[in-house]
């Protein structure tokens, strides 16, 4: 079973671009357009792969190293995050907080690369990304805490197993966690209302900003990393905060359904909700923190258990 889940984990890297692709397609349909096919990200990656990367004048090793490092961080994250409660033994552990550290390393690499180019637009976006991540990281870790409460462990496999079945839904804590995790997904995948993945106006972008100076295979790495971030977050959300039960096969089926459902939710939110003013985002994330703290309090007090 672990070997099988290792295969699914690795396949996640190949399937990841499908997620932003299908969200874009769904969104277009919801808005009455035909839109690009769900395979469009693969075509984009293939197009970029055949182009040469470029070096802006005056950049050095940090700019040169950042895209492979970001992609490597996401690859390691794929190895850490289990699927349907199981994971292959890659020897990297399965700790939730190590995952947070890896995402932070990727964020730092991109911000440093933005400084290396000296591009004002890239830096503007990097500064916003890091500002939001201050509140986002607090929220992410609190949501992980809620998921860890019933497992008494920060091992993602144990957390997924503990969230299986229907009993967990009888207390309010898990509901709080699920609600807050939606915010985490929106933030980490860079979707509306926090960030707009469709915009290519330099003044408004957040996650796309530091990518401005990259081209060719460098840009392909970064596009893939953004897609892999979708995979990590949606898979995590589906197995920590969506109902699942039964053996590995049943859980895997429910996981696929859950990820597809979450893609639909994201498309729906993007259709219905305009982008927030950037300075309002911390308040939104703060509300998420308050919800999770309430959840932790109710769990420890034993409400509904």
């Amino acid at each position, binding site marked *: 079973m672990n070997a099988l889940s290792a295969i699914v984990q690795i396949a996640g890297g190949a399937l990841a671009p499908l997620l932003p692709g299908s969200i874009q397609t769904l969104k277009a349909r919801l808005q009455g357009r035909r839109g690009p096919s769900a395979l469009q990200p693969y075509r984009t990656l293939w197009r970029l792969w055949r182009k040469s990367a470029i070096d802006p004048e005056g950049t050095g090793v940090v700019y040169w190293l950042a895209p492979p490092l970001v992609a*490597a961080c996401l690859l390691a994250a794929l190895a850490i995050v289990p699927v349907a409660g199981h994971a292959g033994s890659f020897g990297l552990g399965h700790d939730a907080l190590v995952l947070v550290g890896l995402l932070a390393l990727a964020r730092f690499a991109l911000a440093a690369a933005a400084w290396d180019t000296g591009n004002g637009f890239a830096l503007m976006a990097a500064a916003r990304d890091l500002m939001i991540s201050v509140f986002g990281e607090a*929220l992410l870790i609190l949501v992980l805490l809620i998921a860890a409460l019933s497992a008494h462990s920060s091992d993602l496999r144990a957390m997924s197993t503990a969230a299986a079945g229907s009993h967990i839904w009888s207390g309010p804590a898990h509901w709080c966690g699920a609600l807050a995790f939606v915010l985490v997904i929106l933030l980490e995948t860079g979707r509306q209302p926090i960030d707009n993945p469709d915009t290519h106006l330099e003044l408004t972008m957040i996650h796309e900003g530091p990518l401005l100076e990259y081209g060719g295979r460098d840009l392909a790495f970064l596009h893939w990393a953004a897609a892999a971030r979708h995979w990590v977050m949606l898979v995590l959300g589906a197995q920590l905060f969506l109902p699942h039960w039964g053996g590995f096969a049943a859980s895997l089926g429910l996981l696929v359904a859950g990820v597809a459902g979450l893609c639909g939710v994201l498309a729906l939110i993007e259709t219905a909700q305009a982008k927030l003013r950037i300075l309002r985002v911390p308040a939104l994330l703060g509300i998420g923190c308050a919800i999770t703290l309430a959840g932790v309090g109710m769990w420890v007090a034993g409400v509904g258990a």
Partner: protein
Amino acid sequence: MGLLGAGALAGATTLGLGGLLSACGRLRAGLVVQCAGMTLLGVAGVAVLTGGEVLGAAFRSTIAPALGLDPLSGFFLAVLALTAVPTLVFARDYLPSSPGARAVGALTAAFLLALVGVLAARDLTSFLAFWELMTLVPAAAILVARRDRAVRSAIYAYLAITHLGGAGVWIALLTLAHHGAIGNPAALATAGTGAQTLVALGALVGFGTKAGFIPLHAWLPRAHPVAPAHLSALMSGMMIKIALYGLIRVEFQWLGATPRWLGLALLAVGLVSSLGGVLWALVQHDLKRLLAYHSIENVGIIALGLGASLLFADAGQPTWAAIAFAAALLHVANHAIFKALLFLGAGALERAVGSLELDHLGGLLRRMPWAGGAFLIGSMAIAGLPPLNGFASEWLILQSLLHVAFYRPLGVALAGAVALAGLAATAALALLCFAKVVGLVLLGSPRRAECAAAVDPPLGMRAGMVALAVLCVVLGLVPGLVVPTLTGLAPGAHGAVLALHAGLSIPGTGSFPALALALALTTLTAVLVRVRGRRRAAPTPTWVCGQPVVAALDWTSAAFVKPLRLVLETLLRPRRAVEVERSGGMVQSITYAGHVPSLLDTSMYEPTIRAGLRAASVARRLQSGSVRTYAAYLLGLVIGLLVIVHTGVLG
């Protein structure tokens, strides 16, 4: 045992000799001898730490001087040696061209001896004597090296605040000695909760002032930046840790039963210090001041680990109590190492470029690959990025706080959850801050001609920095080799509670195999670099909407922090002044000045100082200078006393 003791004594003597040599004009030789002395002391510390035995005298409540070492002292001594030896190697090439070099060199040895003395003191008098020396010697060294008025005022603030707050240390230790409780926790347990509370609070305020806990921190960002680089490194790296050593001794070992409120208080202090420290670090424009504020952040993080340890002990979880304690100690070591590295780096940069104003640097990684590379590693370590040492200890402290939230009572669990979120936000803020520092100092294009012409410092300075950077990497790769030993130092722990691994494999976590993770990241990055192949396109200028790239468009420190400053405007309260000069309807020039004052300076210290001065001016009216008035005072006093005696109030 005899050999170890002799080694430690020889080390201290050598250190003293090194100081004398420096004073006699053989500065470089003196610093090398000091290095040898610190190495001997460090070896003795490691031997005591791993051997688990007690060297020399045990703790006693008398006033007869006594010296000795136990494993906890041994750990701090080892960390002191690990930071001091590279710092002294750095100083060998750094110090000779500084003002007052000979005196500063001798005072460095005196300072190190005072630090070692606090760790080795086993009785009341020698502890307090070394403790005061530890405060006074660096003040003297700074005054010798820098003579301007601003520095004198900073040193005055340093001495005033640390002595006012330091009274807490005296109160705590004298109360302990009065009850015969130094080294004997049972004695204070019988003395009642009143004495216990007094000791706990006194130690928290006294040692907390010296450690730089907010709100008692105001001296730290003033005093640390004005010292010569190697002294800044030792002050920020070790002096404030020695204060934490005192805090651990009193609160963890001599208090008898530890009350729950103390754990919660440490969590609160740690949370406020870590968040406050990093927030005000973000808005500094001077590199050394920024680093000093980060020291406040990091002692806050250590306090979070210590508080979690107390709460676990209270909740009956001895294993996690030991792990949280070890996490705090590991962060002590890690912070000492990367903070020393960063301060040394700041010194090297200042030598090379002549300024530490963040907006005046840039492009130094390429021009100073050794110093810049080491500085980059230190920055990534302090930002808590895997796989460096800062992440290992922050991961352990985060895990501890996460597990605090599992256990009742509700208040403790919620405190753990809030502290957990606060520490996560602190880590993200530190990331923001050091992304800014790395970008402004090391990357991009040079912002001044001096930066373009900068070259790497001489060998000694490079070697000191590289050694510390290597330590950052090694401790990040194999934290699991150190942590089990440290868990054995926790009060109530009988031997190590964890097995020896390279990584951190702890029950209740998903485990952090640091070495494997580092290997995986390096291999994957290398493979991806290889897959990417060569670049075929020619270099292009950066995209600025088609405009030419000019220096005036360079992003600044204030600009990078602006989003956060806008969000937290109510807390940070920036002050800015914009002057627009017009003539004939045309704008001729615009000058902008902005700074963010420390909230506690404006809302706590300034009003207190104003009230104190006002009270003094009222009291001054009593001093008329006329003999008759003083005679009247005396007469009033005598009559008052007679009335008191007559009414029998005094019994």
